[in-house]
């Protein structure tokens, strides 16, 4: 779990410091304000490279694989036109710190850490859907150099995590682990089935979770964590589909499903879940359920950091968060100074305090446009 991130003279950022909520964090900003770069910085600093004896070389390579600078030299990631070295520094919940510094001509970075403890691995879900790429990226022994040129490490990392073998018996997991009994069935019922790994590729099996034995009314009323789960996945007779035959938005939900089922995402143990634009390719009707799932993950001690420019997603968090369940949603607004071009950041816990709030602005604009078109100068 990351508690603080500082970025100086790095890519879009001149001087940025963010304190993260241990639960839900939403990084908001227009295109080009550095949202994805911020998520990738967290991914880089959370990885095992910082503990490696060749940390300087390894982390430099990791940054290049994540950001793909033109020259393939880490120095290029230092923000042009600024003085001093680039610096990335993260503080994690258990007190570990990782600091990386480099000059504009560097091919290696200087790494300092305060402890040798392993950090919990972060999970990064990039904008484009990855489930259908797994076969090509992993299973069929592809040419790594070609892949590296096409995909940054954000995609390759996730493909590896998705293809990881694990107890794929979701039903057992749902039965045994109370943390999953509301999340996994909700995800499956949201998309009308689930994705399963068959011979190195993901296929979609239509079906739904149903209460097999029927919970007693006492069990239904019991608090979630003590409830005996009796839900079971029942496939329909529909034939298996290749993931490419299913909607891209469904595949994004499938990514979350798979990460939970193979243990790559294990709330309470895994590092931050970094999700870049969860809304892309998602039917807006699925948004509410996705937000409910993310809130449920956070209630089970999964730190979540989202980047978005969809203000409807923010509004869902605002409406669905339940302070009685200790939900905590922190909004981090990135904007760009029109004069200096520098990225600025502001954090707040209240949706209403978000400034500028593009959702309210957009709706107000609609109201004003209707008045202008239909009433002209009346009342003005």
């Amino acid at each position, binding site marked *: 779990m990351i508690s603080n991130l500082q970025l100086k003279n790095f890519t879009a950022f001149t001087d940025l410091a963010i304190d993260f909520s241990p639960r839900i964090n939403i990084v908001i900003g227009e295109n080009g304000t550095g949202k994805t770069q911020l998520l990738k910085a967290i991914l880089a600093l959370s990885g095992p490279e910082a503990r490696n004896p060749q940390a300087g070389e390894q982390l430099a390579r990791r940054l290049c694989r994540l950001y793909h600078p033109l020259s393939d030299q880490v120095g290029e990631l230092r923000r042009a036109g600024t003085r001093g070295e680039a610096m990335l520094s993260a503080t994690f919940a258990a007190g570990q710190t990782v600091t990386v510094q480099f000059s504009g001509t560097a091919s290696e970075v200087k790494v300092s850490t305060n402890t040798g403890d392993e950090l919990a691995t972060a999970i990064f879900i990039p904008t484009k859907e990855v489930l259908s790429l797994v076969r090509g990226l992993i299973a069929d022994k592809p040419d790594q150099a070609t892949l590296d040129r096409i995909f940054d490490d954000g995609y390759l990392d996730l493909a590896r995590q998705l293809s990881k073998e694990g107890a794929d018996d979701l039903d057992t997991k749902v039965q045994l682990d109370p943390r999953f009994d509301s999340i996994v069935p909700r995800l499956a019922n949201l998309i009308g089935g689930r994705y399963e790994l068959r011979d190195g590729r993901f296929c979609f099996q239509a079906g739904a979770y149903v209460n097999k034995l029927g919970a007693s009314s006492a069990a239904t009323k019991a608090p979630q964590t003590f409830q005996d789960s009796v839900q079971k996945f029942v496939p329909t007779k529909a034939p298996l589909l290749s993931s490419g035959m299913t909607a891209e938005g469904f595949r994004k939900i499938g990514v979350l499903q798979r990460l939970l089922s193979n243990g790559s995402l294990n709330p309470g143990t895994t590092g931050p879940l970094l999700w870049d634009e969860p809304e892309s390719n998602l039917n807006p009707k699925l948004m509410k359920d996705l937000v409910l799932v993310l809130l449920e993950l956070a209630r089970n001690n999964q730190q979540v950091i989202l980047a978005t420019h969809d203000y409807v997603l923010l*509004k869902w968090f605002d409406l669905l968060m339940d302070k009685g369940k200790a939900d905590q949603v922190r909004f981090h607004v990135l904007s760009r100074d029109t004069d200096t071009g520098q990225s600025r950041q502001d954090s707040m816990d209240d949706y209403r305090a978000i400034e500028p709030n593009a*959702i*309210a602005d957009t*709706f*107000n604009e*609609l*109201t*004003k446009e*209707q*008045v202008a078109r*239909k*009433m002209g100068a*009346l*009342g*003005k």
Partner: protein
Amino acid sequence: MKLRERDLEIDFTTAIDAIVFDQMKADRPGYHGIGQMHRVDFVVELEEAILFVEIKDPGNPKAKAEGLAKFHGELQDGTLSNTFASKFIDTFLYRWAEGCLHKPVHYISLVTFEDSELLPNFSDEIAKKLPPMGKTMPRWKRQLVENCQVFNIEMWNQSFPKWPVARVQVDGVKRGARRGA
């Protein structure tokens, strides 16, 4: 010309005439007299148009929990927009019978929502319940309403600076009483 609905007061500075339309006290001027018909709160005559104005005040700091629950329930199940539509239609008929519908009509409502995101949706919900219910009617020569739109205080004041709305103290005025001034 100021009109007040409980503790919300609108000053229609450019109006030729502005009346409390739903006056149901027989001893007051402008007595409506048909309890079975729905009624908007105000009717305002301008040089070039007529305004029907309906006011709902869920944002009143004195609003009671039961009242708010009822309001939000009706907003959610669609009965609130039904009521808004009925008020327009019945007021339109009443004013037609009075021979007072010789200018284009605008139906503008003030609903004190905190979130302005709700305004465009609720406006459209009412508009599609007004004849011709969103249909194109080749036989029709006229339209009932030019603009059907809902505002909160902030958006009302931004849109209509000449008809400012304000929350006023009601000290000395019996709660629920209204006056035209």
